[in-house]
């Protein structure tokens, strides 16, 4: 299976004459631009289509105006913050001059700002779980076990975070994240190892590993479990992590879950993802196996090694996501969190919509992060739309996005064929 329908990663292939780019730059340029435009256009079309169908569902089932619903979700996600364009001015450094500035930089208390902080927190997680799916995709593997890898990472993070009281904060956070990363990598590595050695299909093994992680987590923090809260023996929850393990808050009120520094990890992960895939031998091998395992084997690349490594690196991304959620805002894990969390699964839609590129993953993580936050019980105005219903609307839109991503490859193929026919 090669689900990695990623055209932007292919070298520009629109040179039927074979004369080379220097002889016909304009054609190559035009083709490249067209291809790139399609690469942007297709996900946008996919999203629009998914929202249209989702709106239709809203209209048919509840009779509510989909536009009002979407606007409420938009505001719940805090995206309206960007449009709170007032007469804000900021002082230029080293001068008395003041200039107009679109955002109110001092505004950290408004509802929109608080909502946006939530959105960015979720986006951080989704970037990482999205990369967990995307990296494996580039190797031709479908890692739908991001959820399990995320859970394993968060379990280790909460254990380390709640132990070692009084440790140096920097060391404590580093230790928790490193261990969670390795745990996620190991969890996914099981599936990678099985794929590489006995050929077990990674879809089934990662799904099974998801459920194993869920039940192990429920056991650990459940009543009488080994990691259950020391003080409250009747609540199925872990110990709180200690102050030294909490990530510093970057923007907003620490008591209201302000945006934490975990977002830098997400940004760094995006850069690492791009660099590893496009600038290292490892990435070359991974992509070669993803394009054509037989061809890669013929070229002397070990397919098995790359299967294992790609899964392990994927799991590492998901493990970081789990650690950052725990250290950044959750601070504890309840069995309910483990059983109902969806962010690992959502990484699949994020990666597919982002077409497995770093920029694409970031943008689609922002989209889904906004949807998740905008439809949460805390942020969505229940007068406009029932939040429990709205979260399922998010899941529905997610499904539609994945469905249409499956179809957009054929749309691209069709567009391309149309163009070659016209130009011929």
């Amino acid at each position, binding site marked *: 299976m090669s689900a990695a329908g990623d055209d932007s990663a292919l070298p520009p292939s629109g040179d039927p004459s074979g004369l080379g780019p220097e002889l016909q730059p304009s054609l190559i340029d035009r083709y490249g631009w067209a291809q790139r435009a399609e690469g942007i256009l297709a996900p946008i079309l996919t999203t629009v289509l998914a929202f249209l169908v989702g709106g239709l569902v809203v209209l048919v089932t509840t009779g509510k105006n989909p536009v009002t619903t979407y606007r409420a979700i938009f505001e719940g996600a805090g995206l309206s913050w960007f449009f709170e364009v007032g007469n804000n001015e900021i002082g230029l450094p080293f001068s008395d001059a003041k200039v107009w500035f679109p955002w109110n930089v001092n505004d950290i208390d408004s509802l929109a700002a608080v909502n946006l902080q939530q959105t960015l927190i979720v986006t951080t997680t989704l970037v990482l779980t999205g990369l967990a799916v995307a990296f494996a995709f580039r190797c031709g593997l479908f890692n739908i076990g991001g959820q399990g890898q995320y859970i394993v990472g968060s379990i280790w993070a909460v254990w380390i975070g709640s132990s070692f009281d009084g440790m140096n904060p920097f060391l404590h956070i580093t230790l928790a994240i490193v261990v969670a990363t390795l745990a996620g990598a190991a969890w996914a590595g099981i599936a990678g190892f099985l794929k590489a050695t006995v050929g077990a299909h990674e879809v089934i*093994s990662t799904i099974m590993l998801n459920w194993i992680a869920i039940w192990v987590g429920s056991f650990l923090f459940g009543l009488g479990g080994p990691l259950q809260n020391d003080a409250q023996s009747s609540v199925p929850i872990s110990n709180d992590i200690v102050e030294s393990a909490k990530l510093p808050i970057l923007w907003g009120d620490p008591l209201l879950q302000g945006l934490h520094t975990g977002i830098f990890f997400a940004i760094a992960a995006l850069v690492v993802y791009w660099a590893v895939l496009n600038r290292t031998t490892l990435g070359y091998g991974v992509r070669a196996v993803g394009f054509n395992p037989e061809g890669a084997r013929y070229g002397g690349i070990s397919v098995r090694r790359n299967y294992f490594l790609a899964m392990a690196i994927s799991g590492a991304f998901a493990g970081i996501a789990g650690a950052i959620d725990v250290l950044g805002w959750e601070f504890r894990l309840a069995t309910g969190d483990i059983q109902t969390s969806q962010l690992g*699964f959502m990484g*699949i839609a994020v990666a597919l919509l982002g077409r497995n590129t770093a920029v694409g993953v970031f943008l689609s993580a922002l989209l889904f992060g906004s949807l998740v936050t905008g439809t949460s019980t805390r942020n969505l105005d229940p007068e406009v739309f029932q939040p429990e219903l709205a979260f399922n609307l998010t899941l*529905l839109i997610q499904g539609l996005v994945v469905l249409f991503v499956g179809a957009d490859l054929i749309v691209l193929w069709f567009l391309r064929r149309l163009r070659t026919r016209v130009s011929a």
Partner: protein
Amino acid sequence: MTSVALPVAARMPHGLRRVAWIGIAIGIVAAWMALPPLTLRSWVPSLVLALIAVMLGIGVAIRGERRFGGFAIASGLFGFGIAFAATLSSVGKLESVVVWSALLAAMLRFATPLAFASLGGMFSERSGVVNIGLEGMMLMGAFFGIMGADKLDSWWLGLLVGVLAGGAAAFVHAVWAIHLQADQIVSGTAINFLAVGLTGYLFIDIYGTEGTPTDIPSIPDVHLGFLGDGFVGDIFGQLNLMIWIAIILVPLTWAIMFKTPIGLRIRACGEHPRAADTVGISVYGVRYAAVTLSGMLAAAGGAYLSIGFVNSFNENMTAGRGFIALAALIFGNWRPFGAAAACLLFGFSSALAQRLPEYSQSASVLFQALPYVLTLIAVAGVIGRSIPPAAVGRPYRKQ
């Protein structure tokens, strides 16, 4: 003994397999003798039997039947493991956990939804379309089954609605897989996501946070009073109608798949669609029918779950069963009896997990992971040696 018997067995048709089956049986006996009613309090006899099973397995495996040899080895290892664990436990607890008639009846109950989905998956995969969406189709069946039964006040109309909903989801998958030539894993995943979103949405929309009402008509049990109160009567005396349908479906599917022209056509489309097309079989038609049927069967399994088994619905209640069914299909080498045997195995592990909390209340949650662990081991143990239909997962393009 093995050094004489095995070379002879190797020359008989299926001889090695028979030896392997003997090994598997010996492994099971090794476990059985340490459990009630025999309850041997020593693990030594089990160890001896288990070693014989493993040796037979190794002997068979090195003579070429690696798959069945592997089964015999696994049977020996598991047999000894279970026997050893049993000797560590007290007799009283063993007797309250291992009540064979109740365990086997529960096994059938847990295996039934898997069997429906697994047999459904067989039609789809044998025709050449990978069906990762079984999970979602089951979920559609579970929700629309209970909704139909509630709104139409009839269990069989509910079952019908559920089956049709699963068929509709499968039809979408078919369009994507066949006409749009989409990646079948991606479109199957989309079906799963869509099913979670759609059923969750409608569930909240229709039933709110209180959940489904308790007075919904459910699929009836079949009372077989003439079986009495004995061992057989306890297992088969009061099973749900859907369990009996599943039991009938297994040989029926085998007959359709391997003894009728329809089955031949389905298999041809999965093995060599071009050849099938050349002799006048409509590859697209067969695949559409097979995929839609697979969704309907999976949905029947889902409907059994909601209106035959637990009589309620909650969000994402299929809990990975569609994937376990898929693993059972692979474990059973894409054959009805093999898949059914795997479903029984996974069903048994669920039944056991349900009774194990007797030992430790806090670890009871951990036992819930048992079916998934077993599935993972099964997938890891045999998958490399089972052979999928040649053209599975590849879209067919007409020329």
